[in-house]
């Protein structure tokens, strides 16, 4: 049966049809859609969850696989960094059932965070990695990944890039396999499942290397890397990895090349390195072009292999400067690579700016109309002034998610972004560096649960003078509204229990703890400015639900209206809030009723009483 689906859904369905019964993960663009689609499908007998963070998610999936099940764990590339400590250990132990780790990379950075190449983690952990070229391959290769994992006893990576994860395309869906029917295994084998001592660890290392070699044989048997040699030897050979293979055909047409005169190796399983087909290609061709997005992992191995077989021709790719380690690839990189390989004049891969062409307006992203974070950013800015400091004298560290949008105009509140939970650790460093002014850390609710708590515990233990503003909107919002431990129980899956941040913080030993409403600007400003002057660790919990989610249930925080006769068009409301629902009308500021959530922040910013706000109970 042919079905339309995204690459994310293809991975999820591939896992389901391979017999996976435990699926865990943490939201992160571009990987989020995989678990979202399974939660919507709600397949019977399959446990699907958003976990607290990627490390926890992986440990749950590994536990299930050690008990003999098939398990899928999903994350974005940054999440793999979080999970990696456990992943290395799990890879060295191997698995009993099947474990597939789905990681999504983001070449070209459509969503934010480091443009890293997760294939490097496969090298470090000696795990096989499959790199599908298309949505259809994402489905098929996820099923093959479980077969490899099951047969060899190793966790396996399925790695997608955004262009595959987010693309919608038809997929030929195969017959689902039943989940393994046996009872869960409880296997006591300390030589496999502990790391105590050299004898155990060195044996596990040898077993790990042997498993990778065995996986290479299984992958070769499956024919996942496809080699086509031209009838005549001596010509151009192209190694196209992952999604780059999908641009070859158009590239050949654009370059005016007859595909029958070329040799092509399509690499969908780059790790372990497919040495045999690469050797065959090197022996057949005069010049090699390697196409892969981001880092030249495959290209380096090709160069090593070329030396082994005494290849004397040129190898074109990133190492000779032809292609870039940055950005997403398309047809332009194929034609450029071919041109250089054939000794022709290469074309630039991006559009050259036209000298007198009109430029698009800058569109810095900001928080949505009605977003409670808007109130927090304004209150922090006002509290800094109220406490007697200038804005550039007070460090405000930022964290991951919608809360980072405070870096942009009109707020300019947040200074830095590192990783989940890092704002609280970084802030302590600024204190210990001797910063004479107060230091503020900002963090969201899901981020606090994910990795912020250990840093907060550290601050309490060492009694670091610090103000932590927790922006609790009840949802993991930037990735499209997922539940987290703090989400209201009414919106959690049945049987879940809410973990209340308001009970958690005092339990950590935080002495100065305040709960505020970010839609009450004066009160929140007063609380933060007082907190800045107090000793020790202060936590301000700003609570108000994400306006997007609340509006989907028909909620409005209140009603705001402009009193036309009092408005002088001074634009202060727009300057302070930057709210997308406000615009400049002919005689007054105008509120777009379709966008306005009634948060009242514009009315509270008006000094002329030209706006009325009536808060809903």
């Amino acid at each position: 049966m042919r079905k339309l689906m995204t690459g994310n859904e293809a991975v999820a369905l591939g896992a389901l049809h391979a017999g996976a019964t435990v699926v865990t993960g943490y939201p992160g663009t571009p990987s989020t859609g995989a678990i979202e689609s399974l939660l919507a499908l709600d397949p019977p007998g399959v446990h699907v969850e958003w976990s607290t963070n990627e490390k926890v998610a992986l440990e749950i999936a590994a536990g299930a696989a050690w008990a003999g099940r098939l398990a899928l764990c999903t994350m974005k590339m940054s999440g793999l960094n979080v999970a990696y400590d456990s992943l290395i250990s799990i890879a060295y132990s191997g698995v009993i059932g099947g474990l597939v780790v789905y990681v999504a990379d983001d070449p070209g950075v459509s969503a934010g965070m480091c443009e890293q190449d997760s294939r490097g983690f496969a090298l470090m952990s000696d795990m096989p990695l499959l790199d599908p070229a298309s949505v259809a391959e994402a489905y098929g290769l996820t099923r093959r990944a479980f077969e490899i994992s099951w047969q060899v006893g190793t966790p396996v990576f399925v790695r997608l890039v955004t262009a595959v994860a987010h693309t919608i395309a038809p997929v030929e869906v195969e017959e689902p396999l039943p989940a393994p029917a046996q009872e869960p295994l409880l296997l006591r084998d300390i030589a496999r499942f502990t790391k105590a001592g050299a004898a155990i660890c060195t044996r596990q290392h040898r077993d790990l290397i042997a498993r990778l070699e065995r996986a290479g044989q299984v992958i070769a048997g499956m024919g996942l890397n496809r080699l086509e040699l031209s009838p005549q030897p001596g010509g151009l050979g192209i190694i196209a990895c992952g999604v780059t293979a999908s641009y070859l055909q158009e590239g050949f047409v654009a370059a005016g090349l007859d595909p029958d005169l070329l040799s092509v190796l399509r690499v969908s399983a780059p790790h372990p390195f497919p040495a045999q087909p690469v050797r065959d290609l090197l022996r057949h061709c005069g010049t090699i072009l390697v196409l892969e997005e981001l880092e030249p992992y495959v290209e380096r191995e090709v160069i090593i292999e070329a030396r082994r077989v005494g290849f004397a021709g040129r190898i074109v790719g990133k190492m000779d400067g032809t292609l870039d380690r940055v950005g997403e690839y398309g047809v332009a990189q194929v034609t450029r690579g071919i041109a250089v390989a054939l000794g022709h004049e290469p074309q630039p891969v991006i559009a050259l700016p036209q000298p007198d062409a009109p430029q698009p307006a800058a569109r810095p992203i900001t928080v949505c109309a009605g977003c409670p974070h808007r109130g927090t950013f304004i209150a922090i800015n006002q509290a800094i002034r109220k406490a007697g400091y200038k804005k550039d004298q007070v460090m405000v560290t930022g964290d991951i998610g919608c809360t980072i949008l405070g870096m942009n105009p009109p707020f300019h509140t947040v200074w830095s972004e590192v990783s989940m939970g890092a704002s609280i650790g970084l802030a302590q460093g600024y204190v210990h560096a001797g910063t004479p002014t107060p230091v503020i850390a900002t963090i969201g609710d899901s981020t606090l649960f994910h990795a912020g708590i250990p840093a907060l515990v550290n601050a309490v233990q060492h009694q670091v003078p610090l103000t932590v503003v927790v922006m609790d909107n009840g949802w993991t919002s930037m990735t499209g509204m997922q539940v987290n431990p703090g989400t209201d129980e009414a919106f959690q899956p049945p049987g879940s229990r809410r973990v209340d941040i308001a009970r958690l913080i005092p339990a950590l030993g935080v002495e100065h703890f305040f709960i505020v409403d970010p839609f009450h600007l004066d009160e929140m400003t007063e609380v933060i400015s007082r907190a800045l002057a107090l000793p020790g660790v202060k936590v301000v919990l700003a609570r108000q639900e994400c306006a997007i989610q609340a509006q989907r249930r028909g909620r409005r925080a209140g009603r705001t209206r402009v009193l036309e006769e009092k408005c002088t068009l001074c634009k202060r409301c727009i300057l302070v809030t930057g709210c997308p629902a406000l615009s400049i009308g002919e005689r007054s500021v105008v509120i777009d009723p379709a966008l306005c959530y009634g948060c009242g922040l514009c009315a509270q910013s008006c000094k002329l009483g030209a706006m009325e706000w009536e808060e809903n109970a």
Partner: protein
Amino acid sequence: MTTSQEPQATFDVLLVGVGGQGVLTIGELLTEAAFRQGIPVSFYPSKGMAQRGGFVKAQLRLGREGSGPNIPLQGADLVIATEVSEALKGLPFLRPGGDFVLFAYVWAPTEVMLGKAPYPALEEVVEAARRTGANVHIISPDSLPVHEGVPVPANVYLLGFVVARTGLSRVLEPETVAQAIAARWPKGADRNLFAFQSPCLPLSASPHHPVTDPS
């Protein structure tokens, strides 16, 4: 419907606009219609971090079995833009002789609204579009047809326009797009089908017809 004797026609569409305008919905409906017709299809939406108000781009490729999701420069047969300034980002992808459809809505960023940042004039954008050698179609946001007293959704109106009046009409059947619309909004089918079919009416029969092609 395409017949099996003819080689499959290819058609590439780039969509640009601002999150919240329904840009991706246009692409999803075209994708669904192509799938219903058995045409190979790939739809690659990309939106930035913001839930609303950020730059949105999407790439739809029709009739290409196994081709990658990114459209090359000067490769798009049709560029659909739903915002005047963002339209400029689509121009380098226009193929000479292709179609450029601009819904001339201005979504001014705050800095522009405050007079602190520049914003391109519609005439400049139209002129730049003309220089690509494409057929330029401008649709005014002030003259959407009215259904039961309310202007119709702009994105579905625009969808009707591109299916009826651009090269896309050689590839997609209006009937399958209408089926995709009805399947997506079982409750709002009437209103959305009215929006979709309005641009198909002959110009003289449609008093609200907003097409003002400056050529």
